[in-house]
């Protein structure tokens, strides 16, 4: 009993809590249903669990995981860079910069990513040669597009451009969430606009940006399963599907894919938690004392107790 922690108040109330039969009945029904599903999952021979187990560690599957993660990472990096540029352009005083940013978001957010990926797969047909030179003038160097932009690059570009359009709005709202007084204080210290953006605005905007950015990353991981539209054929979804077609066992390979996607999204969610904590430093809603905050963080049991991590960056 936690009784010894409390102050010694005489005649403390010993309350009998209200009984909720409805909740109890509902819980029993749900528990039975869950048990039935679990039973069906394990006992249904059609799942072919031995095949699942066999292919869970297949070389092609592991390679597929690698490519899926690589696609996710590169597309998110490309998307974030594009989005940051677009978000800053969106707030520019020059109407050309604002207009281009608006058009980019309009186009790439309005077309399904699957359609965009097919387009990027066909870009070599559209522009067989890409060159570097004077705009509308002579070219100095020419590249064969199909060699320059392979299936992997096309997949990254397609996913990244699409993601950039979504992230641009997220980043813009993040930048706008930073109090105007912050910029003024930084200006008054003699900081230049680029320095203010880098040192003051972006670190504070990150607190607002990180949660949706994490969701977008997890979304991107799942969206990579569409790269067969390019077609790129080495990601987890395509790899498991190819095996399934070869051995005529679609369901166990789907389970393999689902299992690994779940593992990857879970890992990403853990990473997101740590990022949110890092960028949330200095912002506390509950309790103004640092000890309280640290205690709360420690109580969550998800971190090591190391306050130095929070003090110095």
């Amino acid at each position, binding site marked *: 009993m936690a009784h010894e922690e409390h102050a010694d108040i005489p005649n403390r109330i010993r309350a009998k809590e209200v009984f909720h039969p409805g909740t109890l009945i509902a819980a029993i029904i749900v528990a039975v249903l869950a048990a039935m599903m679990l039973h069906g999952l394990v006992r249904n021979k059609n799942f072919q669990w031995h095949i699942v187990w066999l292919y869970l560690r297949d070389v092609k599957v592991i390679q597929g995981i690698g490519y899926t993660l690589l696609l996710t990472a590169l597309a998110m990096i490309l998307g974030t860079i594009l989005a940051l540029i677009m978000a800053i352009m969106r707030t520019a005083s020059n109407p050309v910069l604002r207009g281009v940013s608006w058009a980019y978001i309009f186009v790439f957010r309005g077309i399904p990513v699957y359609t965009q990926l097919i387009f990027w797969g066909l870009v070599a047909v559209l522009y067989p040669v890409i060159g570097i030179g004077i705009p509308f003038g002579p070219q100095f160097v020419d590249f064969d597009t199909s060699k320059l932009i392979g299936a992997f690059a096309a997949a990254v570009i397609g996913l990244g451009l699409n993601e950039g359009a979504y992230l641009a709005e997220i980043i813009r709202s993040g930048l706008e969430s930073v109090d105007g007084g912050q910029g003024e204080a930084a200006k008054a210290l*003699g900081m230049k606009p680029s320095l203010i953006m880098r040192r003051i605005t972006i670190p504070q905007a990150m607190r607002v940006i990180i949660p949706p950015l994490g969701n977008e990353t997890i979304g991107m991981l799942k969206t990579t399963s569409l790269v067969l539209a390019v077609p790129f054929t080495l990601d987890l979804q395509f790899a498991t599907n190819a095996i399934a077609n070869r051995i005529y066992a679609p369901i166990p390979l789907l389970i393999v894919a689902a299992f690994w996607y779940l593992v990857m999204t879970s890992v990403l969610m853990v990473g997101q938690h740590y990022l949110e904590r890092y960028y949330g430093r200095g912002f506390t809603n509950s309790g103004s004392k640092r000890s309280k905050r640290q205690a709360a963080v420690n109580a969550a049991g998800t971190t090591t107790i190391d306050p130095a991590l929070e003090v110095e960056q």
Partner: protein
Amino acid sequence: MSTTASTTTGTLRPPLGSPMVQITGLHKEFGSLHILKGIDLTVSTGEVCVLLGPSGSGKSTLLRCVNQLETFQAGEIRVGGERVGFAEHPLPDGRLARLTEKQIAAQRARVGMVFQRFNLFPHMTALQNVMEAPIHVGKVPTAQARARATELLERVGMADRATHYPSELSGGQQQRVAIARAMAMDPELMLFDEPTSALDPELVGEVLNVIKDLARSGMTMLVVTHELGFAREVADQVVFMADGVVVEAGAPAQVIDHPSSPRLADFLNSVL
């Protein structure tokens, strides 16, 4: 006024000699709203100038013009003899060339400013707040900036809270850190924009004491405040503004205790 003070020794102010701030014929419009209607004001080096006036009289706007947080439509501001915001000489066609962001930033770096709402950087500790500008604007080595920041936090009585984030500090403590932050760039001039207006009454004193200490060290200051006691105690010059013009200016004893205009007398009555 204290024209007899001629030495810089001890706690005496340096002589009230060369002008630090010269404002002439300043006009400021927000759209159709005429906020400042021809302001003339001179603050000498080492002088503490307190701006008084009802809200909406334009005193905060005037302060923000000095640090170029606001643009102005007519007139001229000089800080340390240097024209603020524009090139020294007009172009052949009579227009004035605006300074670049970089040049403006360099001018601002010489002027410290303290805001009503503190505006500390919430993602940095008190120490990091004070170190930020010296490191990234002044290009001071980190160790040196840290030593100087620690010294400044000590001076405002915040050394023991150096590793705390602003959200973990009281309003008065935050404002003291903000003063240390503004001092870290070794400014020639300090601007205070109602530094105690956002504070709970019991926290006003600690901040005013830090500002008084700064005034006694000979810092040139332009202070917008409603604290008459503070004005009486540390100001060399008190300027009363109303409706965008300077109504009365002079020594505190003269302006606060013997107002000559009915406008100022009304204001003093409502504040006291």
